[in-house]
């Protein structure tokens, strides 16, 4: 990236953490400012080896913080705020999850940016944005997912909706939108020589890239329901001999191919392969098709379908994922040194660029770079550093 961007990560949690991981991976110098002692919430999330909690050994934080440097500053103390201000002087972008009131208290409020930090791009990712009735609602992910429409769509019909397990599924989308907004603001700054506030509501970002079910409802009166494993008899997750396969025939020709592969070519015109409402007198065909799927291994089904141009996969466990031949061939995993845990394999670059590398240093221990940054780069004297450590402003 150009002239090594300096990014200050003032966030807590996986949304900001994912945004700044991406910025770090593609070349930015990311400094993560964490509260002394406890650090980011993701440092407490795990998974931990043998479930032994340790702020430096949380799987989620090791993944998210790779490539960053960590500095501990108590930004709620007057001295801490002063140091933060000095750090911000060196920054191009600050990414945080502060409400409007919280940002005002730290001197980063919308009205203060132009006068205090005219060149700074501040990207705020909050659950619900900076205004509106929920602006101060610091909702846990599950609550947010219920209010952005994702949860309603996920799970089996007739049962309680069920989310995608983990912290990342609904953190990544807002994080990527934050990176896009930040880079767009950077382009603006080059033209107009001024920074600005970029606001990302996680709720809106997740809703904006769902499938426009709201517009569909308004236009067609069609209310989508939870799909369970299947969108149609030939699109979704099918029980195979040794687990689940994904057969995703969405077009007429793809459905016809599936009929042929299953030895049911003469039934191409049935409701099973036409993706129209199920006809009860065709129950036997559905059973025949399910039985055929169940007689094959999930990998064989995947390969047979793909070799015949039908989108397909198999439902992988974590162990399977680590062995995905396509990802291994493309070096799609990063082997990351993780201190006493040895090295862990994590997902690498989300895309490949012909001229720009994606590389990540190991994730920092909490406060690992406090001295390096505050002495070496902000220019605090040794006496000042010692005094601040004494007062627990920094660690």
């Amino acid at each position: 990236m150009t002239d090594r961007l300096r990014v200050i990560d003032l966030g807590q949690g996986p949304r900001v953490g994912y945004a700044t991981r991406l910025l770090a991976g593609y070349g930015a110098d990311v400094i993560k400012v964490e509260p002394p002692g406890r650090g980011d919430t993701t440092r407490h999330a795990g998974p931990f080896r043998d479930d032994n909690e340790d702020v430096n050994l949380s799987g989620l934080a090791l993944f998210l913080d790779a490539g960053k440097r960590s500095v501990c500053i108590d930004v709620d103390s007057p001295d801490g705020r002063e140091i933060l201000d000095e750090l911000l002087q060196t920054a191009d972008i600050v990414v945080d999850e502060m409400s409007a009131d919280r940002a005002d208290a730290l001197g980063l409020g919308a009205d203060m940016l132009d006068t205090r930090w005219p060149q700074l791009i501040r990207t705020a990712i909050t659950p619900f944005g900076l205004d509106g009735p929920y602006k101060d609602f610091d909702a846990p992910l599950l609550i947010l997912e219920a209010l952005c429409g994702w949860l309603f769509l996920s799970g089996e019909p007739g049962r309680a909706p069920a989310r995608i397990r983990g912290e990342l599924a609904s953190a990544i989308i807002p994080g990527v939108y934050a990176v896009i907004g930040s880079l767009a603001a950077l382009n603006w700054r080059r033209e107009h020589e001024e920074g600005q506030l970029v606001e990302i509501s996680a709720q809106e970002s997740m809703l904006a890239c769902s499938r426009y079910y709201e517009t569909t409802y308004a236009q067609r009166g069609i209310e989508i329901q939870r799909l369970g494993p299947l969108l149609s008899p030939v699109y979704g997750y099918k029980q195979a001999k040794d687990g689940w396969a994904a057969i995703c025939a969405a077009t007429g020709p793809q459905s016809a191919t599936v009929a042929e592969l299953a030895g049911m070519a003469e039934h191409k015109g049935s409701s099973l392969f036409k993706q129209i409402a199920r006809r009860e007198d065709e129950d036997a065909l559905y059973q025949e098709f399910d039985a055929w799927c169940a007689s094959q291994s999930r990998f064989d089904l995947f390969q047979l379908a793909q070799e015949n141009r039908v989108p397909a996969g198999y439902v992988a466990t974590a162990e399977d994922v680590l062995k995905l031949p396509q990802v291994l061939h493309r070096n799609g995993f990063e082997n990351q040194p993780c201190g006493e845990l040895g090295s862990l394999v994590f997902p690498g670059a989300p895309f490949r660029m012909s001229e720009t590398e994606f590389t990540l240093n190991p994730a920092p221990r909490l406060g690992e770079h406090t001295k390096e940054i505050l002495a070496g780069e902000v220019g605090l004297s040794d006496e000042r550093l010692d005094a601040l450590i004494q007062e627990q402003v920094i660690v």
Partner: protein
Amino acid sequence: MSNSDDALPLSGLRVLDLTAWWAGPLAAMIMADLGAEVIKVEAIQRPDGWRSTLTDFSLEKWWESSPLFNAINRNKHGLTLNLNVPEGVDLFKQLVAKSDFVFENFSRRVMPKFGLDYQTLKEINPRIIMVSQTGFGQDGPWSDYVSFANVAESLTGIAHLTGHPDGPPCISGQMLGDTLSGVHGAHAALLALSERRRTGEGQYVDLSQLETNLPVVAEALAEQQLNQRSWSRNGNRNPHMAPHGCYPAQEDDQWLVIAVENEEQWQRLANCIAESGDGEWASDDNLASLVGRKTREDELDAALSAWTGRHARDELVAQLRSLDIPAAPVLGPSEMLNEPHLQARGFFEQIDREPVGELPYPISPIRFSKSKFAVRKNAPALGEDNEYVLSTLLGLSRDEIDRLEREQITGTAPAFG
């Protein structure tokens, strides 16, 4: 502040958008919303497949009626060009010379087949940034395989982590597998733009949907490696909170979520349950700690479900929220349109487009203090901007433009068969 094109972050940049369906058009729409001039290129012989998805086929111009197409292509210009004939390819190359980005999401052999591989585009315009969004990437054993959202969600283990422990892997209705590819397409293009500012040269982006989906399961990969434990579906449970789940309301098929973050919240919830006359079960001392509640989570969830099932959803949520217990209704699309917070922020905008009339569409989720998002243009009708592109940008004469249409190299209605 102004809504004109020159007051947006990507004003003055031009995108050629060859993508179809969902993930690619999302990437290009993000660029359009940010102010780039995006020219969506279709062929009348092969319009974007999204035009015939959830379509109202009773309308004369049915291909203009898909809510999905209309929502994911706003702020784009529309050009039709048959790239299967040399003249179509030649016109496209002339546009490449005048553009900054090319987005495409064909199978990897298609652009070379058109004679439009990156090397060729780069010779025409060294500043061009090309983003290829495929299912599996440009090389490797599966590079000719094809993908939809649920292919990527299955192979990366997202499907394995979606659903109830005693149920099947489930489709994520929001089709996360596609949107991850889409947003990263725009992300890549903006990074390449930053780099071009420095080097003066464009570059090529090889985006594999599979790789954009992998980060979702990073925790499961860590758990596997750290403890040799395999994560699978767990409903809505969370290791650090209990109760943490989705519970039925009194109304049929209506649900609410409750996420108790700490002991104080639990105490308030337990009091609330006791005061509602539901007995003393929640006041059990063994449930006062997270460990105690996790140990008896099945029993806890069952009792809580029985309690929530006796209450109207919205009243119960309001009561819990008044006690500072995180709770929310599980909202589906029809209710989302009236969600008060989104309404206060004007997130759905009424847009009038032929032939479907005025409908609510979500706006861009990126809000800038120095410029304001606007719908500058509706999703294009097929070939709507042929005149602008061919005449204004490429300087073709009236006669030439008419001839192209006669020869079906351009056009404004699908020509199948």
